[in-house]
């Protein structure tokens, strides 16, 4: 896919990606791994819809259905949406702030490999005795009773990949605070960078409760603890709280970057400055803050009492206000702009009504009294698919088309892109709109089949047809990617022609040091300002000098693999008569701690690219 791959041998390319600390290559790794898990999760979704296409279907058994359903949710949230969001954050955010890399290139690589090994571990459950089957929320009262190792795979896999996400969050925060180019003040940062910033702060504070929740579950299931066992004094509600104290911010961790991508798209393809930039920043920060105040709206029927329910209901409804600010700002950005309906822009325009419908049902669900009616019905399923697919997945597809040229130096085919878009849009509404009514007609979520003659047959069949539209659309996208990569027609730095921010000022794909000279930022939409003054590119903020770069390293890969090994030990040691579990656990942890020690004692000063080599690059059209 990259030009590097053609010049180097296959083994050398693999080694390069295993050891890379370059944020652009790590972005590609996230994109490939996240894309793979997206296909896996999509396949699971298709199995769900095929099973529910007709009443009393026996396409899959009830137990297998539970596993597929659990893995669909878990995979899509943790292993598809999160890494794909991280792919764009890694690929674009450092370029948008005019940085040569992230603050901690080594940790960036470590974050990816932790996520990857966690994801692989979780999915190995399919081949090693059965996947988790207690839903993606894995409520303790249900999951403690689950037999086999499915839940153990869930707990350990998410523990490993969650650590990677936390590391990534810290890395982005420090990058944005410390590594901005001269003149790039906070209020000149592109919206996607702002979204990355707030998202990273949410990750920092939302993931530790999940870590602890998973630890408690791990101790209960594998080491004989009693946190969730009421007969031993435990309390199963603790898991629910931890899961949702993490889980609710998590949905904003997914949607805020989506908002960021759409904010870029609206401005670029309306050829207008984003309307109400400062209110957009304000709304993003406010959503991030309120996102921590509302977790218990997932637990209205748990029995917290009317006072708690009322407080969480009102707090939840309040989030509609900053979200509404954003919706109107996007509309006003388009107002009076010269709009180009490219593929990314079509996703953006379709996103507004689709996401707003999800938002409206969100406010309906926020009303605690009403929620007793909707709870655990298909109405909820429809709601969260409208916000997550209509918001996050649309943004990821739009971002794929928008940033593909920046990441790979070649444009995806627009015609096929529009086929993907229309099929996906139609398929999405066909699948999920009817599910609102299925819920209101009484169909509970997470059931593996239903009886004839309850008025659910036709609607379920329609929903399944919609799912096939989305599947076809995804296949077209894959064909598009393959054909584009084979043709590989190179494009310049600003392939859409109307790029406004710094990433469009450097070649596609950017050289490994990004900016030869750091650019001088003179306002919001830095490149657009220069363009309006008739300049071709950014004005450099520094003379040409040596560039300091980090060394590649295999240690992140080894460090992550240690936890992967340790997880097997922890899981199997609880089996009857198992003797190798604890030794394997210790060996795995020693691999991880040993790699940390090696990293600590081995000096790594990086290296310098000398001025003279940079001058030579001028022939290849590299500019500041």
């Amino acid at each position, binding site marked *: 896919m990259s030009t590097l791959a053609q010049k180097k041998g296959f083994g050398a390319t693999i080694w390069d990606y295993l050891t890379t600390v370059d944020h652009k290559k790590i972005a590609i790794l996230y994109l490939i791994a996240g894309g793979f898990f997206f296909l896996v999760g999509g396949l699971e979704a298709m199995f769900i819809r095929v099973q529910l296409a007709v009443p009393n279907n026996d396409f899959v058994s009830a137990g297998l259905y539970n596993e597929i359903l659990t893995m669909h949710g878990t995979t899509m949230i943790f292993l598809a949406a999160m890494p794909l969001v991280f792919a764009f954050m890694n690929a674009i955010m450092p370029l948008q702030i005019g940085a040569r890399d992230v*603050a901690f290139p080594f940790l960036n690589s470590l974050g990816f490999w932790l996520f990857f090994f966690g994801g692989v571990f979780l999915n190995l459950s399919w081949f090693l005795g059965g996947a988790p089957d207690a839903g993606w929320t894995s409520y303790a009262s249900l999951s403690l009773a689950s037999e086999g190792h499915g839940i153990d795979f869930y707990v350990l896999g998410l523990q490993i990949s969650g650590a990677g996400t936390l590391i990534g969050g810290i890395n982005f925060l420090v990058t944005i605070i*410390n590594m901005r180019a001269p003149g790039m003040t906070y209020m000149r940062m592109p919206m996607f960078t702002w979204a990355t910033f707030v998202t990273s702060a949410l990750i*920092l504070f939302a993931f530790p409760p999940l870590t602890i929740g998973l630890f408690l579950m791990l*101790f*209960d299931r594998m*080491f004989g603890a*009693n946190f969730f066992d009421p007969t*031993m*004094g435990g*309390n199963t509600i603790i898991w629910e709280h931890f899961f949702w104290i993490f889980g609710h911010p998590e949905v904003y961790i997914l949607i805020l970057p989506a908002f960021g991508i759409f904010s870029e798209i609206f401005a670029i393809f309306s050829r207008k400055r984003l309307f109400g930039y400062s209110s957009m920043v304000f709304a993003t920060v406010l959503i991030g803050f309120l996102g921590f105040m509302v977790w218990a709206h997932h637990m209205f029927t748990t029995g917290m009492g009317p006072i708690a329910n009322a407080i969480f209901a009102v707090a939840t409804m309040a989030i509609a206000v900053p979200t509404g600010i954003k919706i109107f700002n996007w509309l006003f950005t388009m107002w009076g702009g010269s709009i180009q309906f490219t593929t990314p822009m079509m996703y953006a325009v379709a996103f507004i009504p689709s996401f707003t419908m999800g938002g409206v049902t969100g406010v309906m669900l926020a009303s605690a009294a009403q929620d007793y009616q909707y709870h655990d019905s298909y109405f909820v399923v429809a709601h969260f698919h409208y916000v997550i697919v209509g918001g996050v997945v649309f943004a990821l597809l739009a971002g794929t088309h928008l940033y593909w040229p920046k990441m790979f130096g070649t444009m995806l085919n627009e015609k096929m892109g529009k086929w993907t878009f229309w099929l996906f849009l139609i398929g999405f509404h066909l699948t999920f709109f009817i599910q609102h009514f299925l819920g209101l007609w009484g169909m509970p979520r997470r059931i593996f089949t239903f009886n004839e003659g309850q008025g659910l047959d036709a609607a379920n069949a329609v929903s399944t047809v919609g799912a096939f539209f989305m599947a076809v659309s995804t296949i077209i996208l894959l064909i598009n990617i393959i054909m584009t990569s084979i043709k590989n027609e190179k494009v310049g730095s600003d392939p859409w022609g109307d790029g406004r921010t710094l990433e469009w000022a450097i070649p596609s794909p950017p050289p490994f040091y990004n900016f030869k000279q750091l650019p001088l930022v003179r306002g919001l939409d830095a490149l657009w300002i220069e363009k309006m003054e008739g300049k071709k590119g950014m004005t450099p903020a520094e003379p040409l000098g040596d560039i300091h770069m980090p060394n590649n390293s295999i240690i992140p890969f080894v460090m992550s693999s240690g936890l992967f090994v340790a997880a097997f030990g922890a899981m199997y040691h609880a089996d009857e008569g198992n003797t190798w579990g604890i030794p394997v656990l210790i060996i795995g942890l020693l691999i991880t701690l040993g790699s940390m020690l090696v990293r600590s004692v081995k000096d790594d000063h990086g290296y310098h690219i000398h001025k003279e080599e940079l001058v030579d690059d001028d022939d290849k059209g590299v500019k500041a």
Partner: protein
Amino acid sequence: MQAEEKFTNETWPASPEKQTLEAKNKFLGFWFFLGGETVLFASLFATYLALKDKVPNSEMSLAKDLFEMPLVFAMTMILLTSSLTSVYAMYHMKNFNFGKMQLWIAITVLLGLVFLGLEIYEFNHYVHEFGHTFTSSAFGSAFYTLVGFHGAHVAFGLMWFIALMIRNGKRGLNLYNAPKYYVASLYWHFIDVVWVFIFTVVYLMGMVG
């Protein structure tokens, strides 16, 4: 400024822990990490408070039966003192006095080891005298998880200090390793602060019932 540069007493900067960009990043990133750790321990405290004295039958020991002031008071004083000695170490780091810095870190490590030893004795005491174990009740699980997580942090901090002392023993201070020492001492202070909360929430509140 180059990280490998050799310094003298006169040229050594006032804030060696954040002189280079790498050091500034490390400094800020570590503070964020401690922010995440705070939430981690807050979650453990919440679990402990929810499950305190939650035992399956009335014969089992509760917090007020278990804890004794002299031992935990000694542990608290030792750990607080180790925080002070790590401050001395950082003071000498800023004055470019490598020998004294290493000495004070060594004292910090010794105090940390004594603390850890007392904690192991304490756990052993609860297990054998009171039958209060990790698996005996929800209270036991929550207690050992919270205090044990802290203990694991102490052990990790000790290994970290020792690795730094051995690695840099022969080469003295420079702008590459000064931030490493600094964040290790930040970590040590954080562990200390967490212990202050454990002392209050687990032991003092436990003893009054």
